């Protein structure tokens, strides 16, 4: 039955509707594969095997009671998915990869997850991540690193490394992640899957354990743009529970994808920013990205060299603003309302000891950095200045999108690096996000998908960026590329748990 796990989400939908297999068989196959590969991957922090099988049976029974021609009524009915452990799901623990939330059972489900469940999806488990989504390698998880399915000595990227690895290794057809500064796009690149970071505000943040509230986005991993579009369309849209959630209509992405055939990109203007092809990055990443841009040109797109002049300032802006927001958001973890408490005689000491002992090194570092940037005497020089430069970065994109419909660039400067390569050098780790941060600061949507492999057979991802709310253009162009190429069909060899 292992071939069931090879199916894409679209193929699962079709197979269920045509009665080729049941949801029970799908979920059982996924659970078997998880049991087989988890010891070498550690993509999950929690697997809900029994509840998932129960829901699968319910989906199959609901189907049996309906007329045979009707098919599985809800779009995701009976299909297993995974969710990053930073999103709450009722009856499942949510740790955000942190010891400070060990044992926390959230009393409500995140809107993005709830919408998938209402569409029939079965949440099979919660995936590993850098603690509070702070990191680019999943090494900052308090529960151990996730291993890259393409090479178990390497990181899967981060912070949504567990979700990216789970999709790459065919444990699930799709998984939710979150992207604050690149945490969907960079692991998608490292794991050879397709990952979408929507426009800021496009998907509700209700039930997302907050990191940087002006940056956090719920995104999705799949093997194809088509699968990603199915999930995105269901979870996107206004939610009254999130004041920053946008009211702009999502529209039918499937129509946008259907029209993407043949020379479908005719007339599409793609900008290539010179600032994303820099010294020090892996040469093969540049080459494969350029080759993919040529491929898009062959599909009818017009390619223009453009400039996003403030790109180099995105890293310093981000590493002021995101830690500043995090230092405020993480103030709520104090050993009083949830999570473990380190007992002490005074309330003051409960705060100090619980936070001192339960936050990991990177989270502590960012809280310190953010607290410093917001503290009296430094606010204007750091936080104030960073907010102004954020305006300049945003304007770079506005100017660019007057001339082009999409921007194409590498997702990350390198392919997946070795576990431990950046330990003890936080700045080197931060530099891994240099190509994903600008779009996060501007709030524009981005997608990463595989466009080739390096000499050691590690996947290389390319990023497309679009104006606010134009996920349809992103997904349409990615779909057209995937119709013409087969990089996204390559899979890591993990049958026996080894690369």
């Amino acid at each position, binding site marked *: 039955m292992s071939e069931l796990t090879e199916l894409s989400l679209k193929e699962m939908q079709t197979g269920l509707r045509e009665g080729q297999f049941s949801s029970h068989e799908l979920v059982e196959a996924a659970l078997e594969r998880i049991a087989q590969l988890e010891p070498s991957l550690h993509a999950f922090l929690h697997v809900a095997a029994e509840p998932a099988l129960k829901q699968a049976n319910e989906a199959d029974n609901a189907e049996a009671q309906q007329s045979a021609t009707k098919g599985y009524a809800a779009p995701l009915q009976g299909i297993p998915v995974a969710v990053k452990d930073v999103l709450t799901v009722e009856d499942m623990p949510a740790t955000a990869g942190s010891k400070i939330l060990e044992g926390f059972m959230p009393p409500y489900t995140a809107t993005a997850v709830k919408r998938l469940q209402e569409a029939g999806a079965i949440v099979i488990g919660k995936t590993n991540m850098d603690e509070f989504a702070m990191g680019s390698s999943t090494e900052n998880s308090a529960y151990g690193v996730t291993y890259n399915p393409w090479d178990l000595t390497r990181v899967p990227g981060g912070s949504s490394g567990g979700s990216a690895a789970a999709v790459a290794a065919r444990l699930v057809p799709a998984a939710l992640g979150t992207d604050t500064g690149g945490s969907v796009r960079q692991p998608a690149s490292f794991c050879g899957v397709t990952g979408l970071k929507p426009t800021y*505000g496009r998907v509700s943040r209700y039930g997302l354990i907050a990191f940087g509230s002006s940056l956090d986005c719920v995104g999705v991993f799949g093997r194809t743009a088509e699968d990603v579009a199915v999930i995105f369309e269901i979870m996107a849209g206004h939610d009254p529970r999130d004041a920053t959630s946008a009211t702009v209509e999502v529209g039918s992405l499937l129509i946008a994808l259907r029209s993407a055939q043949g020379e479908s990109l005719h007339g599409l203007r793609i900008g290539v920013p010179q600032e994303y092809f820099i010294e020090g990055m892996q040469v093969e990443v540049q080459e494969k990205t350029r080759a993919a841009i040529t491929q898009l040109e062959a599909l009818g797109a017009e390619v223009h060299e453009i400039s996003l002049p403030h790109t180099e300032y995105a890293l310093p802006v981000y590493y002021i603003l995101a830690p500043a927001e995090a230092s405020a958001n993480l103030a709520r973890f104090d050993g009083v309302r949830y999570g473990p408490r380190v007992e002490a005689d005074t309330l003051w000491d409960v705060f100090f000891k619980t*936070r*001192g002992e339960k*936050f990991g090194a990177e989270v*502590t570092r960012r809280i310190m950095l953010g607290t410093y940037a917001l*503290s009296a005497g430094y606010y204007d020089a750091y936080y104030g200045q960073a907010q*102004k430069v954020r305006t300049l970065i945003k304007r770079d994109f506005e100017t660019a999108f007057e001339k082009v419909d999409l921007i194409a660039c590498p997702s990350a400067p390198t392919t997946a690096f070795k576990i431990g390569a950046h330990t003890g050098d936080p700045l080197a780790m931060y530099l891994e996000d240099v190509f994903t941060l600008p779009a996060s600061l*501007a709030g524009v949507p981005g997608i990463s998908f595989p466009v080739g492999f390096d000499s050691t057979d590690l996947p290389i991802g390319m990023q497309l960026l679009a104006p606010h709310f134009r996920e349809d253009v992103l997904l349409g162009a990615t779909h057209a590329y995937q119709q013409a190429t087969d990089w996204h069909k390559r899979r890591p060899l993990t049958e026996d748990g080894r690369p």
Partner: protein
Amino acid sequence: MPLSLQEVEHIAKLARLKLTNEQKARYREQLEAILDHVAKLQELDTQDVPPTASVSVGQMPLRADESRPGLSTDALLENAPKQADGQFQIPPVFE
């Protein structure tokens, strides 16, 4: 950007973090390196640039200001490390 040990201790106090001496020394060094990098922002003249606090596009509608059912006290207390009489329990603040 040099950072004194006293400054590190002050930040840790503001952030309610108990740090060991070894941690203080390490964070001091690492924060200095990061602050050196972010000093790059001072290169830019931003006198006439307004700050961006949010990248939300379009209107953010307010919900109706009316009471609605929410989570029960029991559900919210369930995760508390210590609770008593339907409340979170903490060490005494006033004797």
